[in-house]
């Protein structure tokens, strides 16, 4: 019992210290170290490919040595941050609100980030990092899923609708699309179906593809069951999808700009964001409530906006910089890079978030764990 009390006491002490912490108003001298939790490929120091390096310059100018812990899923990121010992995290839309609600991250003072004003205005107050007017992070990078298609199979025409992956039809090359299209095998793909129905079946009243009532949800599942008939294999891994488009005769699928960029030299491939819109992701750098290296963390948030990070990471990942001015003048990204990766499509993008039962746009919604069970059933042909 004693031990239990001590442990609980420790938790409470940690909790109380962060609850009342207001953001700092002045920067001190750098601590010499920065611990980051990040997605794989997000923090590159030229070790994977020499040209892609946005850490060395930061270390040189600030004296903060960067240590990175990569995480594979949002759940993993939340767990690592709860464990503690890290200063910042590159959180996606589904993790960021959880971290704020759990008081794991602290409010930041945007005045201490000189380049804050250069951030895309549409992202400065985005709902996934701003709560009650308080900022809990600095936008890092965003990107969208795209419809990747084989230009030969489509006879040089650009498909303008996701229907090529949802409904059986004859393509421009005279063959059916059956067994030649793919879809993502994660349950979040249900949102893509909901987004499609939002456009084509307004009577369902879908307002947000991540917030579905039971009726809207069932309609989406029906669409996915129909899709199962024409999808030979779902994709799960970026490199396996690239192999499928090269060796397996697949011609259309929802995909990431990453695959499109890598495939384009060898396969007649192009991509488009169709009229229904697309799903996407937006990541935010957030600071741990008990960050030991707070000054280095602030310096990093400035660095991420002002350095070559934005343009080079966008090129590396097939994503879009949160600082639009970084789109020009980068060799790695190229003059058309931002356009290819989708900067003009911001308004058509439904950013990824975890479906929860208590939702804003409907009375009550189908939660994520149901999505998982039902999507497995759909893949199994049920």
């Amino acid at each position: 019992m004693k031990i239990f009390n001590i442990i609980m006491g420790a938790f409470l002490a940690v909790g109380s210290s962060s609850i009342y912490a207001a953001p700092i108003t002045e920067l001190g001298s750098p601590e010499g170290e920065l611990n980051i939790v990040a997605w794989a490929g997000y923090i590159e120091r030229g070790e994977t490919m020499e040209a892609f390096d946005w850490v060395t310059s930061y270390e040189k100018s600030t004296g903060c040595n960067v240590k990175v812990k990569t995480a594979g899923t949002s759940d993993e990121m939340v767990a690592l941050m709860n464990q503690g010992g890290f200063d910042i995290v590159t959180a996606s839309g589904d993790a960021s609100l959880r971290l704020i609600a759990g008081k794991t991250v602290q409010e930041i003072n945007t005045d201490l980030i000189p380049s804050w004003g250069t951030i895309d205005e549409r992202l400065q107050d985005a709902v996934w990092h701003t709560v009650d007017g308080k900022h809990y992070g600095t936008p890092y990078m965003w990107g969208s899923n795209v419809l990747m298609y084989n230009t030969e199979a489509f006879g040089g025409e650009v498909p303008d609708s996701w229907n090529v992956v949802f409904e059986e039809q004859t393509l421009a090359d005279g063959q059916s699309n059956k067994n030649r299209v793919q879809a993502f095998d994660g349950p979040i793909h249900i949102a893509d179906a909901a987004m499609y129905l939002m456009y084509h079946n307004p009577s369902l009243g879908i307002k947000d593809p991540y917030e579905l009532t039971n009726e809207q949800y069932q309609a989406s599942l029906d669409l996915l069951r129909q899709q199962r008939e024409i999808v030979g294999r779902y994709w799960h891994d970026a490199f396996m999808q690239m192999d499928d488009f090269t060796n397996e005769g697949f011609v259309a699928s929802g995909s990431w700009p990453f695959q499109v960029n890598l495939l384009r030299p060898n396969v007649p491939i192009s991509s488009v964001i169709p009229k229904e819109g697309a799903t996407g992701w937006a990541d935010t750098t957030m600071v741990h409530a008990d960050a030991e290296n707070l000054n280095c963390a602030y310096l990093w948030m400035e660095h991420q906006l002002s350095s070559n990070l934005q343009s080079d990471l966008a090129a590396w990942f097939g994503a879009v910089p949160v600082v639009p001015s970084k789109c020009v003048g980068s060799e790695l990204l190229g003059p058309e890079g931002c356009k290819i990766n989708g900067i003009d499509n911001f308004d058509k993008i439904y950013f990824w978030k975890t479906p929860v039962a208590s939702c804003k746009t409907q009375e009550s919604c189908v939660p994520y764990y149901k999505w998982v069970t039902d999507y497995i059933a759909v893949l199994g042909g049920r």
Partner: protein
Amino acid sequence: MNNFLDSFSNFAFRNKNFIFLSFLIIPLLWLGVVYLGSLLIFLGHSFFHLDGFTGQIVYEFSFKTLLELFSSPANIDILIRTVVLAACVTIGSAIIGFPIAYYMAKFTSPKVKIFLFIAIMLPLWSSYLVRVYSWKLILAKEGIINWFFEKLNLEWLLDSILSTPVIGGPSLSISYIGMFLVFTYIWLPFMILPIQASLERVPNSLINASHDLGANKRQTFYKVILPLALPGVIAGSIFTFSLTLGDYIIPYIIGTSKFFIGQAVYTHQGTAGNIPLAAAFSLVPILVMVIYIYCAKRMGAFDAL
């Protein structure tokens, strides 16, 4: 202090069991607490359930999750799909593995035997993922098998095989046939080696005696060799069967994206946080294996151990 050490060493010398236990306690704790303990806690979760509204785990004893597992047709599909494929892979491995093991045990010189051993073990030295990925390329629509059939003008044959309902598909790598081939390839060594070991132990004198008593080759095989080698076949089948039951990587790479038990466990506990259902799913292979091993024991598979 010296006194204490003296009496301690005397005590330890007189009580052999004490020494024995103190050496064994660490591995026993490892097996008991770290391994079995965590496994039992995990499996115990199958008696909890997920609250339908909040998605939180409800820590109350109930059979809701197990009922959910066995009442949903999608879940039953997953169970049947996995068990049937595991059985087919086991039978396939036995049919391919037995002649190889028989040849190794009875007809080779020691040098050739060592060569064959290495040939069988060699694939196990390279990464499992690399081997599965290369099979994906071999089986692909533009892979070598298709190319081979094309060169022989036998595409019609491959097409007609692939148009078989249920097991067929648009290409070899997107069908149950492909999954069967890859699983059989991956687990075959685990079938050959136990069979080979059990065939080694069949005395040649028994085979000679069988011939002397007038049995022809076929009779000798079915009445003498096979029964004596059966424990090896069953030991091998336990490997191939249980390994196929639990695998979740091959179904992600080869096949039609329909889920298998391993994937269901992975997805439910990993991204969905539905640990009760994941635990219930993982109970099934354990139950199937218990029944299987019980039957094998009844058949005398472990008598020779």
